[in-house]
């Protein structure tokens, strides 16, 4: 089976970036109130970079995340600037988790965490139906 990030991932990332930009702007306003109004000039680079990242990053990340599960291993690749490819053999997998945070539920996506003895790796913001299918396939392979 194949899995990938859908439109939900793009929306979640856009929301998170927007929230972070607003928080950074709020912090700048706070500092300006405390020290000097000149600090408000910092809003210009923060807003411009925030807007750029808001428009540029989410669709590219959503397009970059894809993977496969063939019953023996999970393969996934992701990343826009730093690209990462992950190979987890099924025999190494100890547990897996499926996260459904409020944003995830609203935009129909899920984050899957694969845990093995040496640590864990994350498959973030997968499409809801892909994530459910992956969880089912992983369960089937573990308990045939």
């Amino acid at each position, binding site marked *: 089976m194949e899995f990938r990030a859908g439109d939900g991932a793009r929306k979640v990332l856009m929301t998170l970036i927007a929230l972070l930009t607003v928080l950074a702007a709020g912090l700048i306003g706070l500092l300006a109130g405390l020290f000097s109004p000149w600090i408000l000039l910092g809003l210009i680079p923060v807003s411009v970079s925030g807007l750029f990242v808001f428009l540029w990053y989410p669709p590219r990340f959503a397009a970059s995340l894809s993977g496969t599960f063939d019953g*023996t291993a999970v393969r996934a690749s992701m*990343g826009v600037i*730093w690209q*990462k490819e*992950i*190979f987890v053999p099924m025999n*190494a997998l100890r547990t897996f988790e499926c996260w459904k945070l409020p944003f995830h539920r609203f935009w129909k996506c899920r984050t899957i965490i694969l845990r093995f*003895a040496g*640590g864990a790796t994350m498959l973030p913001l997968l499409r809801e139906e892909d994530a459910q299918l992956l969880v089912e396939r992983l369960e089937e392979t573990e308990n*045939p």
Partner: protein
Amino acid sequence: MEIRPYGAYVLYDAKKWIPLLLLPLLRVLTAPLVFSSYQDISALVLATIRDTGLYMALVAYSVLRWRFCRYQLREYAHGTLHSLTLTKGLLFPNSLRLSAEDAASVEMECTPLLWLLGGRRVRINTAGLRRRSDAVLYLSAAHAASLMGQTVYRRIPRRYAARLWPVTIMAASSSNAALGLLTLAPALRQAGQIVGRRVSDEMMSLAGRVVSLGLPPLLDSLANVLVLGWAFAFVRNWLRYAGFYAQLEGSRLHLVSGLFTRRDVLIDSDKITALELRQTLFMRLFGLYTAIITAAGYGRDKGTRPVLIPAARPRELSDALDHLIPDYPICSSHLRPQKSALFRYIGAPLWMLSGTLLPLWLGGVWQVLAALWLVGSLWWLTVRLLGFFQAGFGVSRDAVSLCYSKGLALYRVYVPLEVADCAMITQSPWQKRNGTCTVEVRCFGEKRRRHRVFALPYSQALKLAEKLLKYSPSRYQ
């Protein structure tokens, strides 16, 4: 069989209250600043008695904890250990049950104090992810020996004993920082002399004269502290590994180390998840390697290093490994970094090397700093250069191997394929341009170490990662 903890338990349990004894001491030291009359001094004495009383009450609490602590050993009919139940706690009693089969490692420690008291400390670890040992027992020497004996399946032992001169060299170079300090100390002395002379020549003010008098002894003392620090590290490491020996007992490795504090460690050889050959630059001059294992359940306590062979030359190392872990899989690291990626390895030390120009240009006392900086940078550059020529990644039907440099040491790591949990290939934007990548392999380890090789050819690394998945034994087929 039920056993009470050995009396030494009280001493080790009460140790945590010792800082409280500082309170009366601090009070006495600060008394002249606060108190003036005889009445105040009597208050001071009363307060000191109260503090000491509190300390004695806490020691009494430790004694009560000892009274209520129990170890229950259950044995099979044929006499081998089945399980251990540890009951402890006075205010919050709890019990812990450990099955002998689950014990991944057992460590018996005999410090000089325990030796005097005739006791032993036994640490039992399972393969779970915990920060400390699962159980720490204080037993008499006889009980501890009996427990260690019961957990060992005895057969003809194959023994490896560390030779003294490699251990001495390893102890001298085990801390690269310590070696750095040795070079730093004479430089500091020289700097002290130069500063003293120059400041007294150039500064005629009173402050300048004070500085010229005070700086040389200050830097000299600092140099002495550094040399003493290195000597301390050397003696500590030498005492830890002199007289080290290891033997294979059935399916378990028995490691014995330490001259003053004797440690007997039993490790289930099936639980070894990685074999690491470590070499510092100083050890490379003598052709020595240190073999370190990563084993589930061993090495989680602070200060414990799962060393299998402290220092040995390749032939001795190979013989010892054949005896100690005969079936351990290894393979060659045939995938090498691209030649064009040399700068990825030596870039940072070269930048550091170029930094010597600034103190050289400033001249005077800064020249000493420049010399130090130069030595440090060249040292790092040499390690990185050797790391580049040694670096590699390989996958066979049984094992994964990774060779890389980290910090100031070179590593060769062998991971059995069945415990290689995850392979990650990362490409940064500039790696994408020259078609290289970073390969990381994760396996279980108490210290959560990451094994990474930089600047490998991307397409071939990808093929090897696929090979790793292909050969990985599946539980589900």
